[in-house]
């Protein structure tokens, strides 16, 4: 017994002494070589042992390693890693940051990859590169930042949505929007009619301050992993996560002032008076000259205001009893430049990422909740303001809230169906209560379990839930000129949208050697989208229901489901040859069971030419050739049940009498039982380059996308089905293009840095087929309805032309004055008459080339940056000029006077000439999006915090030949008709880290 105890204590003693003798402690400090500021969060790991630590906020670290260890590896995202020899005393390590670092981790479909290992066309934009300034809605962060990505704000209303197009969009009737994934949960990015009632933009519920990075996946080899929804590209948004270590706080606040810089040029009171009197004198008809007022009102001045806004965000990130967390709260309140417009948002996000079982189980919990309060201004006031008679004073004594209105002899407003035809814009803004509240929660729980018996194999489960609830009121009092005839119109609406995601996958990765590795992913995904629709009738001010608005069904629950399997392999050989191959099988409830399943394969090869041929040069730091080919689908933006024959019941106001009873109608809808998704095949060749340790880096990509089975509403012969148009798969389209990106830091010294990012891309889209049965007399599908007259269309889907190409008459001009001659067009087919056959295809709304540029200069603690974007080759139809630039616009047949655009003075048209090519204008532009100035005040408050102060101007100027208000049109049709002006915004902000 004694011997045993002695033996055991001997073992213990020697173990202890072995461990104590064989250890040493290293201390040091890590700094940024560019500015000598300490770097926190840097990983210092013993080379050859498992000991590792992370540097603190002051850059200092302390690490105990076995005595035999000679070097440590120091690494930090965005900086070149170093291997440092251990010496006596403090180690002083300066890390050099790399512009576009190759070690940067990029979020890709279902995982992450290092930038140097990417095989597809993917661009990642991190928080430091986002657009700066007053950004209310997250889609605005990317304007001009990525080659091939076009983000166009819908208008100047705060929180309004943007049109996002990647490589031109590949659909006609289905959605052209890319798929948006937030923290692994694909969201229902419904727009247009499917938009949540009461929300102008689903993305404005996410606080941009919470976003870490956004990855834009452009080619099929990257997007095919999302299968049937990926044809228009994928945007992956990743929110900020908690960092282990001491709790760090960040407070960001911003105050901004917006104002309208340019009004729509219309006539003033003198000009209108002159024109009306001239008509009266020459014809003796005093109908309108007797209606002239004596005032000189600038209506646009009255509806716009200088708008204030504030945005605040407080976040804390650290570890709470070893659980890394990040929690943030944001408050944003933004007025619109249109009076009564206002957007408010309270948001909070929480991220927990604990690890259990010796890091075998990684748990990631993300919850984002926001409450947005929208006070919508009536945007019809904009159109009303540019067309209201400037000779009238805004106010009058009447029953319409004291606002001047055009009245008939009986005191009712002049209008065709009861509502005022030319309402006072102030009435529209003031006597309009349109408020909605939107609550949204996006959450997901991700479990990543490394098997104990096989640590290279992971089981990953991701359960996500996205729920939005909107409720609002739109009330027009009976004093409103547009609601008086009904005694007021009170509308209440509510709607809910939900999305449930369940992903289960197995992931295996193995390093066969230092330069050869592979990984395999098998995924099963199930997603269910449904909307709770409530239909509520309207009431008038005294509470009586408006029987014409009683819905047939009080509730509805449109729903669709998606079930998918994905297999993917990544293989790296000798760190030179990279291969990615994937196959996704999607089944969607939107199609019949015989058409439901689609297979979406993709493959990509990358060849690191630098490692192959130029391994030893220092000038070239990266040269990688990428080839990708893949098939993706598109099924977003079409009705949920279009393959089913269904009968719909009519409303209560559409019935037929048999005998003494009235009967509702049951009407069958047109349907195509064989409908399926669109399929796009994309080929992409790209070259990633980098020189001088990636001081100069970028990429060039060539791509070609061919879409077949385009979901199109095409005309079918009467008698074939229950309508003369049908949503069916017919049609082919091709998109071809080139993208070029350049990132460079031309100057980098201890005190001065200058970096520059430039991207430019060219895209050409062409429809190659539109019919199931060939028809030589088919001239295309009429699209792009314009305002004015009834049913006038200006655009076409036609074979061999870009979508929405304009079809117009060729205007003839007076040779001496250069003015267009009203109604005179070229007889292009020389048949002696001007008919529809003389219209020709002229220009298109989509740009040929888009480009973005950002540059930043830093001197000691100051930074100055500029960002802008441009678009070339896009043409717009100036519907405002065509509708309002005519004499008939001033003297309305219903006996009131309106205002017209100054374009009337150029054309002198007396009646509308909607279809003339005179109104198709070149809308190419360059816009300087922002100038930002920042000052790093360094340590404040007794070294407790570091402070950065910023000042921004957004929408600085625009260079364009377009004669309308703003050449940047957010609709695909290219029709400019009274947009909400985009204001110039001045803002100052503080960012405090403590």
């Amino acid at each position, binding site marked *: 017994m004694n011997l045993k105890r002695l033996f055991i204590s001997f073992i213990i003693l020697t173990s202890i002494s072995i461990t104590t003798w064989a250890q040493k402690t290293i201390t040091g400090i890590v700094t940024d070589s560019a500015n000598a500021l300490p770097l926190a969060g840097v990983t210092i790991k013993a080379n050859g042992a498992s000991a590792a630590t992370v540097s603190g906020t002051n850059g200092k670290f302390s690490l105990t390693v076995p005595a035999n260890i000679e070097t440590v590896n120091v690494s930090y995202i965005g900086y070149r890693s170093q291997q440092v020899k251990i010496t006596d005393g403090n180690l002083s390590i300066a890390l050099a940051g790399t512009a576009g670092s190759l070690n940067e981790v990029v979020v890709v479909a279902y995982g992450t990859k290092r930038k140097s290992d990417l095989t597809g066309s993917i661009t990642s934009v991190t928080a430091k590169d986002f657009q700066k300034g007053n950004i209310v809605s997250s889609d605005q962060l990317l304007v001009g930042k990525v080659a091939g990505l076009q983000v166009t704000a819908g208008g100047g209303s705060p929180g309004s949505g943007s049109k996002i197009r990647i490589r031109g969009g590949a659909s006609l009737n289905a959605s052209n929007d890319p798929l948006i994934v937030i923290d692994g949960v694909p969201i229902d990015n419904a727009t247009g009619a499917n938009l949540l009632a009461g929300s102008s933009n689903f993305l404005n519920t996410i606080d941009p301050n919470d976003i870490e990075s956004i990855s834009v996946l452009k080619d099929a080899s990257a997007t095919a992993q999302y299968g049937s929804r990926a044809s228009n590209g994928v945007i992956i948004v990743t929110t900020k996560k908690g960092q282990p270590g001491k709790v760090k706080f960040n407070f960001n606040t911003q105050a901004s002032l917006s104002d309208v810089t340019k009004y729509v040029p219309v006539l003033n009171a003198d000009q209108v008076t002159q024109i009306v009197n001239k008509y009266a004198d020459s014809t003796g008809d005093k109908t309108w000259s007797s209606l002239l007022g004596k005032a000189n009102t600038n209506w646009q001045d009255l509806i716009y205001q200088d708008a204030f806004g504030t945005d605040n965000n407080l976040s804390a990130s650290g570890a709470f009893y070893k659980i890394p967390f990040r929690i943030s709260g944001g408050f944003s309140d933004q007025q619109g430049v249109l009076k009564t417009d206002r957007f408010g948002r309270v948001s909070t996000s929480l991220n927990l990422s604990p690890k259990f*079982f010796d890091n075998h*189980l990684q748990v990631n919990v993300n919850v984002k909740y926001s409450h947005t309060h929208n006070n919508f201004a009536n945007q019809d006031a904009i159109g009303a303001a540019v067309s209201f008679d400037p000779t009238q004073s805004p106010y009058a004594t009447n029953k319409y809230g004291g606002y001047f209105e055009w009245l008939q002899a009986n005191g009712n407003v002049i209008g065709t169906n009861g509502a005022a035809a030319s309402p006072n814009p102030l009435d529209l803004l003031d006597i309009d209560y349109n408020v909605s509240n939107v609550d949204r929660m996006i959450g997901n729980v991700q479990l990543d*379990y490394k098997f*104990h018996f096989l640590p290279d194999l992971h089981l990953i*489960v991701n359960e996500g839930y996205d729920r939005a609830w909107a409720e609002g009121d739109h009330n027009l009092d009976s004093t409103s000129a547009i609601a008086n005839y009904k005694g007021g119109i009170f509308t209440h609406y509510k709607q809910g949208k939900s999305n449930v995601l*369940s992903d*289960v996958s197995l992931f295996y990765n193995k390093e066969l050697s230092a330069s050869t590795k592979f990984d395999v992913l098998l995924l099963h995904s*199930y997603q269910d989208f449904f909307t709770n629709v409530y239909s509520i009738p309207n009431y008038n001010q005294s509470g009586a229901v408006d029987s*014409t608005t009683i819905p047939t*069904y009080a*509730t509805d*629950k*449109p*729903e*669709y489901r998606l*079930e998918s399997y994905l297999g993917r392999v990544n293989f790296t050989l000798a760190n030179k040859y990279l291969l990615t191959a994937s196959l996704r099988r999607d*089944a969607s*409830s939107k199609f019949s*069971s015989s058409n*439901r399943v689609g297979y979406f394969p993709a493959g990509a090869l990358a060849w690191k030419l630098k490692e192959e041929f130029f391994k030893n040069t220092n000038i070239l730091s990266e040269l990688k050739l990428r080839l990708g080919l893949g098939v993706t689908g598109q099924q977003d933006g079409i009705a*949920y*049940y279009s393959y*089913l*024959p*269904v*009968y*719909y019941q*009519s*409303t*209560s*106001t559409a*019935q*037929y*009498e*048999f*005998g*003494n009873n009235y*009967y*509702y*109608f*049951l*009407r069958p*809808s047109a349907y*195509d039982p064989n409908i399926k998704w669109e399929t796009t095949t994309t080929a992409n060749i790209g070259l990633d380059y980098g020189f001088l340790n990636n001081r100069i880096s970028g990429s060039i990509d060539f791509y070609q996308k061919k879409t077949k089975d385009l979901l199109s509403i095409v*005309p079918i012969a*009467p*008698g*074939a*089905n*229950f*309508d*003369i148009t049908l949503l*069916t798969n017919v049609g082919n389209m091709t998109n071809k293009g080139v993208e070029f990106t350049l990132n460079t830091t031309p100057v980098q010294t201890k005190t001065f840095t200058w970096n520059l990012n430039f991207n430019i891309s060219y895209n050409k889209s062409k429809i190659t087929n539109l019919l199931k*049965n060939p028809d030589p007399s088919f001239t295309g599908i009429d699209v792009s*309805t314009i305002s004015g*007259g*009834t*049913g*006038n*269309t200006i655009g076409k889907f036609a074979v061999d032309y870009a979508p929405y190409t304009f079809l117009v008459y060729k205007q003839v001009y007076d040779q001496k004055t250069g003015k267009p001659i009203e109604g005179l067009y070229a007889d292009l087919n020389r048949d002696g008459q001007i008919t529809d056959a003389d219209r020709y295809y002229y220009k298109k709304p989509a740009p040929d080339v888009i480009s973005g540029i950002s540059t930043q200069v830093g001197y000691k603690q100051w930074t100055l940056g500029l960002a802008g974007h441009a678009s070339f080759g896009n043409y717009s139809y100036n519907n405002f000029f065509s509708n309002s630039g005519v004499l008939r616009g001033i003297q309305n047949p219903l006996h009131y006077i309106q205002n017209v655009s100054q374009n009337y003075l150029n054309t002198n048209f007396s009646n509308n000439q909607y279809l003339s090519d005179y109104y198709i204008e070149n809308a190419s532009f360059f816009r300087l999006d922002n100038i930002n100035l920042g000052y790093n005040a360094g340590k404040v408050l007794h070294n407790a915090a570091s402070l950065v102060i910023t000042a921004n101007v957004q929408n600085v100027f625009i260079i364009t030949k377009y004669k309308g208000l703003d050449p940047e049109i957010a609709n695909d049709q290219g029709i400019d008709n009274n947009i909400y002006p985009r204001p110039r915004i001045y803002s100052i902000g503080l960012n405090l880290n403590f």
Partner: protein
Amino acid sequence: MKSKLSIPAFIYAVIIFCTGSCSKKLDLNPVNALTPVTVYSTADGYLSVLAKIYGTLSITGNQGPSGQPDIGGGLDEGSQVAFIRGFFNCEELPTDEAIVAWNDQTIHDFHNLSWTSADPFLKGIYARPIYNITLMNEYLRESTDASLAANGISGTDASNIKETVSEVRFLRAYNYWVMLDLFGKSTFITEQDQVGTALPKEISRDSLFSYIENELLAIQTTLAPAKTAEYG
């Protein structure tokens, strides 16, 4: 050790739960709409479809006063999709009995006797009678003896529906007569033609005349005597 083993078990359970029960859930039906099986399983369903067929003579869609138009294709519901208005346009506007002063697209072509094949008003009045006939063919398909039996309709319900068959054939002949009067030849579809995307046949003027005549002669005896059927 115990806790470590039960976690994998729990996770396996999660996989099985998620993958197993999800596959059959992709057959979804709209909540507020009816499939043909449901519609034609009751006599009231037949009456509602009949109401629609009669309604097509005057009402433009499924919502009053306007909305949910019967015919899309870019046609304006009020001015181009209505039967009576389209018929009026063709019969009256080219005469000196009526003038339209509005600027709606090509309406003035009627006055100037200069309409072309691209005229949207003509497209509407061509599509409308044919649309009506498509509905009627569907009703007739569901009203054959075999279909009634298959749908479970019998007794007085069945005989009532059989009486309405003659009325529907009359309305169909009337719509074809409108086509004959306005266009001469016409698209020709009967209850034998299925709904889909295929191009329907065309019928010549003479054959269409004979067809209408034969239809009217066939139902002469089966229609209820004048002034005995219920109103509507």
